[in-house]
């Protein structure tokens, strides 16, 4: 443990701390994958689960599995777990980015209206019955809604020049309130009870019945968006010293901000499109991560990404197993555990004397 502490210590070289943190988290993610996939309506032995995953990913190791086990893991649980990991990674990385760019510990991916816009898109798809035309109509409209809301917030913020960051937060609040009203109206006007249920469900996020199509849809966006975001860790550090100081050290602050917010909005929009609204991951994970690795964004961004993946994998596991055979919404799980945990973090940090 003391070796671990010393390596993660701020004085140690960055590359070493990064390698250790990422190595541990990757190991944890792989283990979480196998363990969470083994349990469910049908329990599959851990070894069999691991070999099916390996074979599915093209590594010919382990014994052949029975057809039932193969199809449960390969067609149901693996795509679902991958979706959970991708969504968790995207939300946590977007949260860490937002907190860094806005220099505000309470920022999360929803702050600039992404989630609300996604919700509006989904509600439109459900309300007008578009989902019966194509099963991807809801995610597609959710994605468009999320991007549309972000663009609206941008335009509002760009129109007023003084403090674009504060304007964006306020515009985000306004857009969210407006969209909330529209959704309430849609709920009131919907006569179809099933559609109503579906809207309410969508608003609390779920990863149920996610297929390989979903994985293929979101994988390229989230991987590329995340990799690009990870390039800006040092800029984010410098921006923590204030815009003038950062610019005087050669950072093009406005451009970096625009690029980072766009990428964060993009990966959030993609995540929201397939999962609905899953709260608290983007808010809580960066705080957890900073407690361990410190404030350096070159560490915070990649470790948030992996921690988010691990966390949502387990949250989804909880949603499947807590009330088995009934399934809870994963958004309920993250809020139920995330909110008290966030309060605990606040309490701890207050006592330590720093906010972050």
């Amino acid at each position, binding site marked *: 443990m003391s070796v671990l502490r010393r390596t993660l210590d701020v004085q140690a070289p960055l*590359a070493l701390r990064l390698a250790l943190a990422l190595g541990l988290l990757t190991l944890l993610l792989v283990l979480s994958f196998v363990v969470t996939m083994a349990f469910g309506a049908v329990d599959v032995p851990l070894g069999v689960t691991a070999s099916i995953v390996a074979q599915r990913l093209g590594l010919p190791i382990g014994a052949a599995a029975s057809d039932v086990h193969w199809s449960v893991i390969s067609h149901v649980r693996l795509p679902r777990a991958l979706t959970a990991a991708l969504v968790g990674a995207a939300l946590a990385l977007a949260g860490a980015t937002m907190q860094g760019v806005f*220099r505000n510990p309470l920022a999360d991916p929803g702050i600039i209206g992404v989630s609300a816009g996604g919700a509006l898109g989904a509600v439109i798809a459900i309300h007008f019955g578009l989902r019966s035309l194509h099963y991807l109509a809801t995610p597609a409209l959710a994605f468009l809604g999320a991007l549309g809301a972000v663009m609206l917030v941008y335009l509002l913020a760009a129109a007023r020049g003084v403090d674009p960051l504060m304007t964006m937060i306020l515009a985000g609040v306004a857009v969210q309130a407006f969209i909330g009203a529209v959704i309430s109206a849609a709920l009131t006007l919907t006569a179809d009870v099933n559609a109503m249920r579906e809207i309410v469900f969508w608003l609390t996020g779920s990863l149920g019945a996610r297929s390989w199509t979903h994985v293929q849809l979101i994988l390229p966006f989230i991987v590329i968006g995340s990799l690009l975001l990870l390039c800006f860790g040092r800029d984010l*550090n410098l921006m923590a010293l204030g815009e003038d100081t950062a*610019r*005087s*050290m*050669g950072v093009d602050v406005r451009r970096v901000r625009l690029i980072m917010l766009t990428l964060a909005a993009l990966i959030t929009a993609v995540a929201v499109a397939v999962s609905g609204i899953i709260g608290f991951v983007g808010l809580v994970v960066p705080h957890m991560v*900073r407690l361990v690795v410190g404030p350096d964004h070159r560490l915070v961004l990649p470790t948030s990404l992996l921690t988010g993946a691990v966390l949502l994998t387990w949250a989804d596991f909880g949603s499947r197993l807590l009330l088995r055979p009934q399934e809870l919404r994963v958004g309920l799980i993250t809020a139920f555990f995330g909110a008290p945990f966030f309060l605990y973090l606040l309490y701890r940090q207050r006592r330590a*004397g*720093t906010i972050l």
Partner: protein
Amino acid sequence: MSAPPDTRRSAGAALSAEDVSYAVGLARLLEDVSLEVRGGSLLGLIGPNGAGKTTLLKCLSRLLAPDAGQVRLDGRDLSRQSPQEIARRIALLPQSATLDFAFTCLEVVLMGRNPHLGRFQAEGARDRAIARQSLAETGTEEFAARVITELSAGERQRVLLARALTQQPRLLLLDEPTAGLDVQHQLQVFGLIRGLVRQGLAAIAVVHDLNLAARYCDRLALLHRGKAHARGTVADVLTPENLAHVFNVEATVAHDPALGAPRVTVLAPLDGGVESGGGTPAGAETPGGQAPDR
């Protein structure tokens, strides 16, 4: 053992600004301001609130692009250089650096290496040595592992100065480096800056306190409504006439043998304005009521 990394600082650079103007909408914040500073010299920018001191400093560091005029560093036009290139030679210590994340002082100081690093390059042994040296020069080594948000204002300002020095600049721009500091820390920070200038660095500082400016600056530029009202040696610039014209106060300037520098004593605000400079102030209310006591 390899040789210790080379952490020497290069000599100061000469900066010259010619007829710099800057406007926001109809407000002409700077009009045809010219000035120059050389290595080994500290130029003080003085003037009342809103005279354009901070705007000028931002134009000199290229945070703002002047509407007209040129800023040259060692003869090279800054407008033709990338922000990164400029940052390798000019460091800026802005007035209010807000700190939101719990970085340690060493981390903050190391950030000064940014202009010298590639995008994916981490700080190496030489960068760390330079950061350590900057901490030593500002007397803040003991804070290296401390979180910067926990320091007092005076300590924090010295660490932020160390951050600027880690850029290994040839010109240092300081915006009211002692704002909000108590007397002891004011002298400490200016003593540090003076020491750096003595070693050859060029520096320009916005100074609010006229007596600090008189004591520590080699030359002064007095700004008034966006224009350079007076430039030159401390004695040339700090005259009762200039102070009356620009600050609208009645003041005396005397040589202080203890400091070896001029000392400004502000007696009273002038009501009438510019022309009445030197006249008897109406309602002679001396600030603090004890102006002539030192």
